[in-house]
């Protein structure tokens, strides 16, 4: 199985979960030109990142091509327990997607 494009670190401290994730993705804006051919590199960027915790969507991020390459996202939510699983998934403008599940520490 291919390695997931998403790296997640989640920690719970007194009921509050702090989630950090790194996604490996080129985040092409569609404005850059290939130096050799002079052609525009087609846009390829993540449009939506969703994080679910026990069936609830705790975060739904909608991104533009303005987000940096290999995007980083951090957020926190309450009502979490150590050992809970969170699911993070993304979809890009070409329809590609990936998701991963992680256990919170």
């Amino acid at each position, binding site marked *: 199985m291919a390695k997931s494009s998403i790296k997640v670190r989640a920690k719970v401290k007194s009921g509050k979960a702090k989630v950090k994730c790194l996604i490996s993705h080129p985040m092409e804006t569609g404005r850059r030109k290939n130096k050799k051919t002079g052609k525009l590199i087609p846009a390829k960027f993540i449009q939506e990142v969703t994080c679910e915790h026990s069936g609830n969507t705790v*975060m739904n991020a909608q*991104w533009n091509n*303005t987000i*940096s390459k290999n995007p*980083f996202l951090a957020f926190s939510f309450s009502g979490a327990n150590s050992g809970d699983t969170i699911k993070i998934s993304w979809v890009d403008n070409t329809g590609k997607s990936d998701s991963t599940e992680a256990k919170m520490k």
Partner: protein
Amino acid sequence: MNEKRRILLKGTFAAGATGLAISAGLLTPKAVLAAWPKAAFQAKDSKAALTASLGSSGMTESSDIKLKAPDIAENGAVVPVTVTTSIKNVEAISIVVAGNDTPLAATFNLGATTDGYVSTRIKMGKTSDVTAVVKAGGKLYSTSKNVKVTIGGCGG
């Protein structure tokens, strides 16, 4: 469901008429809300982008929002931005970069238990104001910060 939405999105990309799709009964309004708001992200103007994404552009300056961003960004391709707010019942946080061609960088829709805190990294084409917009209780609050982008990258 996801598959369908992608196809629908592609369809609307081509036709550019989400409204038509609604009137044709292809999409329920809820599905439209959940879909990526193309109009918002392609708007060339901050106000138009915010109206399309959050429903209005009338904002109140608020000191309850903290926007952490560098004063000088050596590399415009990676500018770390952190938004923290003490405002209650935050529904969404948006990041707007006024100087970019498409000002709306991101909208984070928060769940009921999610704290008013997001951190990410954005690209900036040139020196400009970065604005954090927080939607709470149907109202918009904002705070801005000017971030200088040095092209040479020699530390300014």
